[in-house]
């Protein structure tokens, strides 16, 4: 027992046990207990976030080295937990109205978060795979949660088939790496790479592994599923997809490339750069023609993943820090945006077309302001937080002599500015008369708070500084 170190993984154990208990509870009751289950699940997620932040220390390895607990994992788990809790909170109203309020939704969220938590603390290729699969399986079901909807079923199926393909790539990569190094453990892989140097099989395995993970963060050219799934899935699910899983998957990539493969950065750097360039350009150009706001957000997330890979390509500690700053800010923005989208209801249903936003400035001033802040922040216009996200993301890349990549990213963000501007234009410049239904309080508060965060946080010096110290501590966990 002495090597299991169970006390390090209490947060995960809590999640696993409570998810199973909630599942049992839901099955045993005949009447609909969904709201109760959801509230409990939100509570569990918040406790999980706090626990994994506080309890994780001191650092160590659990399950004989399969999982590692360090400051990096603590930081990412905290934000994943909070993002998932917010996702559930925002989903409630929608699910009730669409008659989708089944308790399974909350349980699936818990399992997905468990999977993500294993992903970000994986210290072994097998636990990596288990984490990825656990998360993905839960997400497949959530994408098709609206069983009666053709679009949702299509989204779920598409996601599943392509996801299975990517899992195949992942497994093939793992087996290649295992074959050429003889080990699955991250530390041993690093030692083996150091001792024996490169081999073609190892590089092949690494490339397959990265491709499989690129699918999870919807980096181009593995992005094909994203627009369809974002559009087809129920909106709260889309919001959930856009936030926590992306954060988990890119954190996993960061751990993978700086840990076991930290010594061969020249090899994976090219892959990351290629993914980054393609994502930025495809995300920026693909979004230009979209009329559906969820599809637009899909392309926007592709582009943003491209930006997040820019600092990672530097492969330095500052790079990981830049990535974490960027992703944290992106997380805040996405949660806010989807809180807004969920609020925007017209008489006969949800707003999905961008043109329906016309007149929002007249009918709901607060929400229009919040949306404007989000869009400008995604564009990276100062003084909004999105600018600082990009600033800190691009700094390490410049330091690593990747200035051309930064210039490319900046140009892509100018192209991207066009479609974000279109949303602002529709809200403020067009004279429309879309009647919006008064939104739910929890939604408007969430969007207001995240908008205020984006506007205000940098103006106060000590917040910005302490926030950076926090993230610096997190990224030092990988080195």
């Amino acid at each position, binding site marked *: 027992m002495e090597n299991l170190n169970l006390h390090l993984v209490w947060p995960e154990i809590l999640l696993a046990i409570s998810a199973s208990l909630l599942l049992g509870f839901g099955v045993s009751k005949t009447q609909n207990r969904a709201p109760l289950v959801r509230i409990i699940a939100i509570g569990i997620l918040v406790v999980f976030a706090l626990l994994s932040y506080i309890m994780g220390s001191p650092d160590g390895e659990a399950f004989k080295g399969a999982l590692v607990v360090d400051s990096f994992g603590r930081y990412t788990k905290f934000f994943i937990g909070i993002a998932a809790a917010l996702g559930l909170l925002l989903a409630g109203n929608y699910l009730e109205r669409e008659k989708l309020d089944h308790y399974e939704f909350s349980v699936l969220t818990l399992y997905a978060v468990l999977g993500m938590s294993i992903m970000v603390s994986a210290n072994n290729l097998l636990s990596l795979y288990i984490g990825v699969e656990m998360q993905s399986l839960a997400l497949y079901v959530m994408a098709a949660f609206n069983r009666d909807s053709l679009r949702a079923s299509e989204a779920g199926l598409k996601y599943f088939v392509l996801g299975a393909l990517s899992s195949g790539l992942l497994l093939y990569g793992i087996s290649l790496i295992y074959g050429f190094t003889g080990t699955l453990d991250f530390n041993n892989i690093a030692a083996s790479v150091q001792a024996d140097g490169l081999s073609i099989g190892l590089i092949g395995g690494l490339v397959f592994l990265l491709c499989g993970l690129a699918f999870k963060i919807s980096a181009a050219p593995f992005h094909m599923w994203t627009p369809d799934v974002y559009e087809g899935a129920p909106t709260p699910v889309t919001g959930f997809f856009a936030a926590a899983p992306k954060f988990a998957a890119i954190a996993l990539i960061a751990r993978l490339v700086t840990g076991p493969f930290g010594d061969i950065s020249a090899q994976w750097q090219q892959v990351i750069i290629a993914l980054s360039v393609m994502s930025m350009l495809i995300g920026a150009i693909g979004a230009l023609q979209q009329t559906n706001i969820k599809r637009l957000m899909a392309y926007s997330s592709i582009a943003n993943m491209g930006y997040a890979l820019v600092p990672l390509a530097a492969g330095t500690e500052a790079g990981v820090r830049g990535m974490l700053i960027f992703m944290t800010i992106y997380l805040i923005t996405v949660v806010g945006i989807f809180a807004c989208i969920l609020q925007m209801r017209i008489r006969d249903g949800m707003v999905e077309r961008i043109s329906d936003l016309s007149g929002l400035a007249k009918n709901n001033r607060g929400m229009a302001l919040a949306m404007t802040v989000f869009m400008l922040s995604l564009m990276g*216009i*100062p003084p909004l937080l999105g600018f600082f996200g990009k600033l800190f993301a*691009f700094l390490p890349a410049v330091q690593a002599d990747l200035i051309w990549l930064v210039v490319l990213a900046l140009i892509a963000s100018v192209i991207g500015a066009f479609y974000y501007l279109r949303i602002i234009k529709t809200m403020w*410049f067009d004279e429309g008369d879309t009647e919006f239904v008064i939104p739910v309080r929890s939604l408007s508060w969430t969007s207001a708070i995240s908008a205020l965060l984006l506007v205000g946080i940098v103006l106060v010096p000590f917040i*910005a500084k302490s926030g950076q110290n926090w993230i610096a501590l997190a990224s030092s966990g990988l080195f």
Partner: protein
Amino acid sequence: MLENMPILSLLIILPLLGALVLMAMARFSRNSTGEARAQLDKNATGVALLISVGVFILSLLMVFQFDSTTADFQFVERVEWLGGGIEYHLGVDGISVLFVLLTAFLTPLCILASGKSIEKNMLDYMVTFLIMEAIMIGVFCALDLILFYLFFEAVLIPMFILIGVWGGKERVYASYKFFLYTLLGSVLMLAAVLWIYFYGQSELGVATTDIVRLQTLDIPAKAQTWLWLAFFASFAVKMPMWPVHTWLPDAHVQAPTAGSVILAGILLKMGGYGFLRFSLPMFPDASVKFTPLIFALSVIAIIYTSLVAYRQKDIKKLIAYSSVAHMGFVTMGIFAVNAQGIQGGIFQMLSHGLISGALFFCVGVIYDRMHTREIAFYGGLVKRMPIYAFFLMLFTMANVGLPGTSGFVGEILTMVGVYKVNPWVAAGAALGMILSAVYALYLYRAVIFGEPTNEKLADIEDMNRTEIMVLAPLAIFVIILGVYPSLITDVTAVSVDNLIANFNAAIGQGS
């Protein structure tokens, strides 16, 4: 009392506070309609005017306190901000202090002039305007590269909203063009800023974005070329220089009157200010290398856009093109890098801020009455609007550069400066001066003189008191600066000499 006050921060924060107050006002009376709504709009204008006058008085106090015998930065404020050497660092020297004053001077006039011409959402309009004032003052005060960039790019947001919401028929196109053009320019500058940050770190030993310290860097000539071009992309678009000026006429025509005034009066000056603050001191070798390019573009701008201006049918477009031409004098003067040239460039920017602002106000006066800016529509206004004819005459002459007005001083100084370096360029610019007389007098004749053929003009009224209140201060300053230019040149002299001395030392000619 003033010594201990963070006066520059106050100048930035005060308009922002005003904007917050107005937003709160909007929040508490969101359901009001009719009478109450009109009263609210009136109050909003009053509050905004009060705030902006307060800012102006504060900036006047600052200028009186300003010590023009030193080239050092004054009223410096320095607080750690983002870490890694990125600081909240403000200060003004002889080059920037008058731009702050110009901003604070033009804003209350704009607010005063907007009372009638804005038809909807007056309160939001005032909020946008105050935010814009804060950002513009920030641009001229920032002494930290990142902070400067923050203000420099942030100004796009209120201007985009201003054109898009309160603009004319083609406002969406114009606002997009304005936003994307200038954004593309400034992101290239951002890339250069990041590079300089790391170069400075490796050379100075500490990470810093302090503009003053970065100016001491000796950047290798090859890198300077690229950095200069990146900064040039940003400033040339803002300026705007030929051939990237095409966003300006569109933006001007579509923007509401006060928006045009701010655009021509302040926003364009950011480009020239950028050349003075960054391109010359930081990249002297590259500046020397690219001087022929700047001269060529400037002369093309002066001659070509003057000719284009002559062919315009829209009054605002004509003035917009004339702005491009006048900015050509500025770039030409700055890159002559001698006392007359740079002094002239700064003088020309300030004077053009007043003159073009005044001209746009003049267009606004007749546009508010007739809702058209077509030159052919007007004619014979002198009979109906004698006061208007007087003001327009004054500003048209100033625009042409008639001696006795501020326009003359700026143009003659830049031309003298350039003549020392390259007489041919000065000759080209002189040709441009003649052409500017051609289009400006053509405009004046077509609008003011002749028989009033258009029946709709039969009962057009002359300027009212508010309009006179807006134009009179501008007229006074245009004349005062024309006969007593030392008001400006005394303030800027020491800083400019210091800039030139450093520049010459850097390119190895000695000073």
